[in-house]
């Protein structure tokens, strides 16, 4: 590690939000008073803004470094360590800014700042509880800190700290209005499902560290892992099934992916994300669109060197991502809650990112992560504006015709919809195209099927997003009369971040302008993102001829257009048709609208048996029966019995019997001494 790459400014990126979060916490928890709102706004948004500023500074510093030495580190202190000498291991509180993490920090702090501004307006009328406003910003800042620790960690253990921290803040924020039990339940669900993933993550860390330690390099820092990766690349471990042995890196990759599936809502651990919509809309935008759910994608990209050597794990990731994308898209076409549609859309887009990562297209997945952050946050926030305008109505069946009534919101929402549908030149087109190319050109078994799934999902995405758009903004207004009169544009503080995000959604694609098109317009090396990231996640290794790329782009645009036209037909031109179709395909409609009854399935197969076992076996039988009954109470009872049965007769109250006992003791001692 070259020392001139340290930069003490790095620590302020996560520490500023942390400081404000701690301040809010102390004010609320110990001092028990809330700051005035302007102070809360200034502190919270200011800290994130400053963080963004430092991130930008660090980014430019990185740019100025040479290609092979493009990293900055900042080590705070040694968190913990073990062992001595050769086998010494230590986990540092160290931050590392390299191209990958700088992209992430910019996204987190930038989009986070915009969402903080938005929240000022969104939560302004929330007087449901005392001090709730400050509590919200405290949690937001805490979340920002955790996410920044996650992306800037220089070792796996610190990444896990951030990982857990965002899970915690997700719970706190989803269940923000906890006086409604349903919200609290949703928060718990998110946390618990996350934990299941975290278990896999931990197992992965243990396996990885164990292998490295045995091979002679006990460290969890990414630099060391990457450097000594050759040591464990070809190790195998004995397998309980499916062959005599497995490759260790495959197992580790799969374990980490379990964690990613939990955090980034892939099959089978996605069930928490739709219910997480119970939280306030800024939370959905920040956590469940832009940042937390992308932690899994970041982690996979960070460990790209591992996945490059683990074809089985990568294939599993790619297939899971693809299936999740398709699965969630099918559910989204029948949802009627505006936020639920967006939630399933998020699951679907995350599936895209994992599909790309599984096909070794890490740059593509990060690219999509960035653009998705822009347009999904935009969509969520503008949906929030719609909800505000409709006085907290979220059912799209009761909306409609809002285009004329809330013009600006309508425009930004439209920008978001076009971006996610993948129409050029908006950002979504470039990133989605990148993913499809990566899938098409990869060597994952069945990659052509993956490509087909990706294409189909793109069509579905376009369809359901435009369905949403038409149902909310066009047609006749189906809202009740009293709501209809009070529909108005949200205040400036809410709209301005939306415009900023709209702008980013429009031009964000330029950072990954494919070389194929760049050549066409005479710009060399136009794929800036690839140039930026290739040292960290590997070059884009797939190459397709430019003509194929043009053809694929055209196919993608075509599919998206089909979706748009179909949605327009069904929801604008002939609004009575969907109901007739639903009636004739009632079973399918019910299946999709009830999200394949997955939650109910989990409940019946897993949750209820678990609760039953916990109650009957662990609580009643073991805890109350054995431990309490036999050991704790049993011990008490036996002592009492012994005392009441025999021991108490020693207390005769007669001094003489005590003298007698003393004499017996003296006799024994005397006998012993005189032996």
């Amino acid at each position, binding site marked *: 590690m070259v020392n001139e790459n340290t930069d003490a400014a790095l620590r302020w990126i996560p520490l500023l939000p942390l400081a404000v979060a701690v301040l809010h916490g102390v004010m609320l928890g110990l001092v028990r008073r809330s700051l005035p709102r302007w102070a809360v706004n200034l502190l919270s948004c200011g800290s994130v803004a400053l963080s963004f500023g430092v991130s930008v500074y660090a980014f430019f510093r990185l740019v100025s470094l040479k290609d092979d030495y493009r990293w900055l580190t900042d080590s705070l202190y040694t968190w913990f360590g073990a062992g001595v000498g050769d086998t010494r291991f230590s986990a540092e509180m160290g931050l590392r800014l390299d191209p990958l993490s700088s992209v992430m920090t910019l996204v987190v702090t930038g989009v986070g700042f915009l969402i903080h501004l938005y929240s000022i307006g969104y939560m302004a009328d929330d007087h449901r509880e005392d001090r709730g406003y400050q509590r919200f910003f405290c949690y937001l800042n805490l979340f920002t800190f955790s996410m920044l620790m996650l992306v800037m960690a220089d070792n796996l253990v610190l990444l896990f700290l951030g990982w857990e921290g965002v899970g915690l803040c997700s719970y706190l924020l989803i269940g923000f209005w906890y006086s409604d039990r349903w919200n609290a339940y949703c928060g718990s669900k998110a946390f618990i499902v996350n934990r299941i993933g975290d278990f896999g993550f931990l197992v992965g860390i243990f396996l990885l560290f164990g292998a490295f330690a045995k091979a002679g390099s006990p460290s969890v820092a990414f630099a060391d892992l990457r450097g000594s990766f050759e040591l464990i690349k070809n190790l195998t471990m004995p397998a309980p099934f499916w062959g005599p042995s497995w490759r260790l890196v495959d197992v580790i990759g799969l374990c980490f992916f379990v964690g990613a599936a939990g955090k980034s809502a892939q099959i089978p651990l996605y069930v928490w994300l739709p219910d997480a919509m119970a939280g306030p809309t800024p939370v959905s935008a920040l956590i469940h669109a832009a940042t937390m759910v992308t932690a899994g994608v970041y982690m996979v990209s960070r460990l790209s060197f591992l996945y490059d050597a683990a074809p089985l794990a990568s294939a599993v990731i790619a297939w899971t991502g693809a299936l999740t994308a398709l699965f969630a898209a099918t559910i989204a076409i029948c949802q009627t809650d505006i936020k639920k549609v967006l939630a399933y859309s998020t699951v679907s887009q995350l599936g895209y990112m994992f599909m790309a990562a599984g096909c070794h297209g890490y740059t593509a997945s990060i690219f999509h992560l960035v653009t998705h952050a822009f347009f999904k946050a935009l969509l969520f926030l503008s949906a929030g504006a719609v909800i505000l305008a409709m006085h907290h109505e979220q059912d799209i069946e009761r909306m409609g015709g809002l285009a004329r009534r809330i013009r600006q919101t309508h425009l930004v929402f439209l920008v978001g919809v076009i971006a996610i549908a993948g129409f050029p030149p908006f950002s979504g087109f470039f990133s989605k195209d990148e993913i499809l190319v990566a899938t098409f050109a990869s060597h994952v078994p069945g990659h052509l099927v993956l490509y087909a799934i990706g294409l189909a999902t793109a069509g579905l995405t376009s369809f359901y997003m435009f369905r949403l758009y038409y149902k909310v903004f066009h047609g006749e207004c189906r809202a009740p009369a009293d709501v209809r009169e009070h529909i108005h544009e949200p205040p400036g503080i809410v709209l301005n971040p939306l415009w900023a995000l709209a702008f980013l959604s429009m031009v964000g694609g330029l950072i990954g302008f494919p070389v194929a098109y760049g050549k066409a317009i005479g710009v060399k090396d136009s794929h800036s993102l690839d140039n930026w990231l290739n040292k960290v996640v590997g070059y884009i290794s797939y190459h397709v001829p430019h003509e194929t790329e043009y053809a694929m782009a055209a196919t993608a645009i075509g599919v998206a257009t089909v979706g748009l036209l179909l949605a327009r037909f069904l929801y604008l031109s002939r609004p009575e048709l969907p109901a007739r179709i639903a009636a004739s395909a009632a079973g399918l409609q019910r299946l999709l609208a009830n999200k394949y009854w997955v939650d109910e399935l989990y409940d019946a197969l897993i949750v209820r048996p678990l609760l039953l076992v916990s109650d009957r076996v662990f609580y009643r039988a073991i805890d109350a029966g054995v431990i309490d009954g036999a050991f704790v109470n049993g011990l008490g009872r036996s002592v009492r019995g012994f005392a009441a049965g025999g021991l108490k007769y020693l207390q*005769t109250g007669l001094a003489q019997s005590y003298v*007698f006992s003393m004499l017996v003791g003296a*006799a024994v001692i005397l*006998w012993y001494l*005189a032996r």
Partner: protein
Amino acid sequence: MSAPVVLFYVFAVLAVVSALGMVLNVRNTVAAALSLVVTMVALSAIYVLLEAHLVAAIQVIVYAGAIVVLFLFVVMLLNLRTDAFAPARARLQKLAGALIGVALLAQIVHSSLSLPTPPPVPPGFGGYRQLGVALYTDYVLLVEVASLLLTAAIVGALILAKRKID
């Protein structure tokens, strides 16, 4: 069998008999106290035979002359001449107590079965002069502590026995 030895046995038997008389005498407390006096005087005689003259004198003066008298005072004060107690409840305990006493005795005897013959004793041994010197030079601290102890005992006995503190 020289005179001291015979005398020793006589006094020994006397001591044991009167001790038994004290312990086994159930009805008359005053008689028990007087038996104790006899025991003490017999022991005093034995002390003389063992060349502990001052101790023998003090035994008679303090033990027989003060302590047992104190006992008798209390017996008279409380009018406890006769014992009208029902037999004690713990008969087994009494028997066990007796056995313990015998066991202790056996142990002590067993430990001291062979002792060497005592050397001749120098003149003045056990006399008041030598004992006094020893008390006030080597053991002066003991004397002081003993005086404190007696003071404490006096105060304690006073408070316990007073009718009420006024």
